[in-house]
């Protein structure tokens, strides 16, 4: 199966074409094709996971016997631990060849790839099922399913890419599909604008990615091969500087795609898309593509940002800032989906920071667990809006007290929130702890503190979110009821994963499946640091979370209508200023729209106006004045004395010449061309004679 993994992305691609052309004629308008295709992909991905585990186990046991496994990859004991180095299973065909450069397409299957295959296919499958209810009766139902299939196919293409070029193709396709899906309800201008914003903002980062791909292509000796690039990067071939440039450019791509500060502004607006799409974008595709890029080309980042040395680097810094600003912004949102969007930004910050501090396993593990609970939370929010609030997402106006009406949604949402907050022993706890422990034990203490503050904020805003949605009095005007089974079943499945997914790499329990199977030991991968279990940190982070929940409840429990927060912003000037600052999203949108767009428009217009007024007018005036003065002199001393007739004659001649020259400005292109060619000929003659 591992050699035939290309089938996994091909199935949704075929499904896309089938839905597009035959979907409308199917009894269920094409949704069954999408679900069947994703089901098949999911089963095959599970097979791939199992086979990869067997593959690694075989290699390890053979390694014990001292035998070498084939596949052309050498096998040796990784110096960092007792794990055998298992190269990826690569199967490619030649795409094209330019001179000596061969570009291949195909699949490169390793632990990271099978993990992503599993996550993408299962989330996408559940989203497909969920959408049958959520999108029921939509005007472009078939089209929606076609786009979902293409979205999944692009993400899978990206995940299995053996070359940076294929990765780039998948990356751009993912961007295109997200544009299509965010703008799915394009009848409303706001949705179209959100889609445009998402597309253009990520494109800004994509420019960096494209340059990064070109830089790494040349730095690694004209190859797109990812393993080769990583290997060469770790050896530092060509000097450190080129890899700094390459890593910084690639980092721009991550910042754009994964919603990192300062290009995170598109993510909350992307909530304009249908909720299942938001779940897919935030959990399994699109935004994690950036983190995946970081994990995939880790050798380049390791070398470029000197991650192994400790201290502060660009990647960790961006991630750390993003954690804090994302979490802080989540506090002031009234729209439940926007709370979750900012939460995603913050959690992506954990992943990027994790990569930046050397916690590769932690970051990838957090990507894995986050996919489940964030998809769960989004689908839960969608369930609320579908069944209780008439497709509104406003927590203050249309929700509240839904615990009684929708028990399944409530309990699953609560599990998702706890998993996100990082309560022991849910999924988020294990992965966040892994990131923090690595940061703390690997000379990145400051980022561990940032992570803990982020955890505190996360727990607090999720408490607020759950409280406003499910507790108190129902403030909407509908008849809330539990959602249909197509919605609740995916929620239950995801809740199950949110509870147990963390056990895949529960360091405390001695389970290190991610270190064992996902982390590539060997060529092209740095010796990342595996942290020891730290009971103190675990206790601390859990205590922080509990305290945060307590504070959150203190604020929102007794004061039924948010009086706590309202009162606070009215009582304290500083709090009010902070609130305004947060509500305006740090004024970044203003900065982009007025500062940059206006800044380019305004000053240029003003500058040219200034030049026009001062310089040109000045010159004209000066010439005018000079001419007047000269005229006076001439009049007094020359004109009066020298013969008038000559002056009149000159004036007459000028008039004549002007009249003649007027004919030159005929407005006819061919007349101009005639003069042009004549002049060229004369100049050529002049050049020959005088040289």
């Amino acid at each position, binding site marked *: 199966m591992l050699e035939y993994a290309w089938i996994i992305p091909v199935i949704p691609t075929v499904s896309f074409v089938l839905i597009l052309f035959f979907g409308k004629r199917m009894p269920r308008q094409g949704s069954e094709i999408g679900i069947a295709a994703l089901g098949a992909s999911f089963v095959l991905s599970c097979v791939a996971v199992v086979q990869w585990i067997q593959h690694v186990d075989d290699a390890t046991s053979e390694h014990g016997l001292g035998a070498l496994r084939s596949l052309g990859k050498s096998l040796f004991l990784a110096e960092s631990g007792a794990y055998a180095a298992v190269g990826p299973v690569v199967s490619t065909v030649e795409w094209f060849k330019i001179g000596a450069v061969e570009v291949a397409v195909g699949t490169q299957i390793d632990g990271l790839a099978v993990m992503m295959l599993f996550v993408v296919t299962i989330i996408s499958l559940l989203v497909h099922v969920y959408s049958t209810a959520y999108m029921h009766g939509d005007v472009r139902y078939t089209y929606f399913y076609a786009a979902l299939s293409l979205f999944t196919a692009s993400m899978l293409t990206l995940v299995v890419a053996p070359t940076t070029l294929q990765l780039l193709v998948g990356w751009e396709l993912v961007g295109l599909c997200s544009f299509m899906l965010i703008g799915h309800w394009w009848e409303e201008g706001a949705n179209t604008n959100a889609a445009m914003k998402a597309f253009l903002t990520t494109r800004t980062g994509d420019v960096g990615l494209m340059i990064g791909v070109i830089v790494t292509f040349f730095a690694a000796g004209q190859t797109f091969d990812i393993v080769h690039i990583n290997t060469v990067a770790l050896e530092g071939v060509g000097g450190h500087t080129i890899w700094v440039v390459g890593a910084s450019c690639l980092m721009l791509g991550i910042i754009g795609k994964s919603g990192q500060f300062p290009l995170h502004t598109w993510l909350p607006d992307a909530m304009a898309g249908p909720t299942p799409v938001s779940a897919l974008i935030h959990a399994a595709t699109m935004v994690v593509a950036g983190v995946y890029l970081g994990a995939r080309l880790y050798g380049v980042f390791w070398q470029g940002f000197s991650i192994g040395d400790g201290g502060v680097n660009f990647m960790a810094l961006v991630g750390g800032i993003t954690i804090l600003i994302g979490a802080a912004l989540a506090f002031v949102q009234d729209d439940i989906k926007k709370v979750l969007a900012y939460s995603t930004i913050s959690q992506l910050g954990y992943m990027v920071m994790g990569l930046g501090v050397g916690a590769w396993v932690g970051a990838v593990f957090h990507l894995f667990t986050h996919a489940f609970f964030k998809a769960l939370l989004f689908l839960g929010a969608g369930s609320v809006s579908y069944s209780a609030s008439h497709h509104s997402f406003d927590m203050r106006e249309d929700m509240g007290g839904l615990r009684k009406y929708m028990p399944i949604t409530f309990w699953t949402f609560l599990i998702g929130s706890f998993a996100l907050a990082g309560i022991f022993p849910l999924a988020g706890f294990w992965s966040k702890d892994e990131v923090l422990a690595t940061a703390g034990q690997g000379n990145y203490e400051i980022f561990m503190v940032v992570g803990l503050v982020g955890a505190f904020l996360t727990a607090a805003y999720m408490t607020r979110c759950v409280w406003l949605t499910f507790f108190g009095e129902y403030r909407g005007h509908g008849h809330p009821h539990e959602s249909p089974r197509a919605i609740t079943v995916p929620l239950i499945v995801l809740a199950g994963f949110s509870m147990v997914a963390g056990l895949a790499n529960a360091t405390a329990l001695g389970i290190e499946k991610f270190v064992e199977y996902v982390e590539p030991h060997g060529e092209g991968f740095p010796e990342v640091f595996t942290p020891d279990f730290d009971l103190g940190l675990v206790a601390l982070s859990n205590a922080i979370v509990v305290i945060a929940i307590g504070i959150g409840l203190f604020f929102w429990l007794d004061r039924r209508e948010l009086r706590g927060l309202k009162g606070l912003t009215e009582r304290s000037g500083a709090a009010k200023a902070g609130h305004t600052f947060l509500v305006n999203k740090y004024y970044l949108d203003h900065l982009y729209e007025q500062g940059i767009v206006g800044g380019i428009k305004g000053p240029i217009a003003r500058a040219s106006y200034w030049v026009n007024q001062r310089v040109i007018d000045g010159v004209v005036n000066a010439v005018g004045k000079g001419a007047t003065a000269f005229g006076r002199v001439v009049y007094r001393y020359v004109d009066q004395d020298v013969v008038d007739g000559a002056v009149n004659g000159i004036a007459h001649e000028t008039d004549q010449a002007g009249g003649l020259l007027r004919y030159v400005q005929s407005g006819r292109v061919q007349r101009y061309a005639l003069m042009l060619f004549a002049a060229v*000929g004369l100049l050529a003659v002049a050049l020959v004679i005088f040289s």
Partner: protein
Amino acid sequence: MIAQNVTFWILAAAMVLAAIGVVRSQNVVHAALYLVVVLAGSAAQFILLAAEFVAWVQVLIYIGAVIILFLFGIMLTRAPMRSDTDLDNDQRWPAAVVSLFLLGVLSTLLIQAFGDKEIDISGGHGAELLAQGRAGSLAESIFAAYVVPFELVSMLLLAALVGAVVIARRD
């Protein structure tokens, strides 16, 4: 040598006469057909210079496609098919003077610069030249040394396609 030179002069005379036909004919369709003669003569000259592949591309693209495009253009602009003097503008004589002047300048310069330098096709050199003009050797050059210009040209064609549609669209 003699055979090639005789061929050249026959072709050259035909091409110049046809070219004059293109710019002097008072019938638009005739002008287009004279253009075919010039372009075909040009393709023949390419073969004489052992540029086999370019010659066939010339035949396919120019005579096959561009001329058809011109005929469509003539049709769509309903240019007068009958003979009349309306096809020239009023700067016929200045244009003739300028172009003859340029021809004089150019030929003088060329004769001064290159004198009677020969294109060597004797013996093995001719075979070498033939090999150079084959599709294979051209492809190696285009897809290795000139691959970026090649991709740019394909972008340009796409842009021209879109541009032509946008400009000519009735809206």
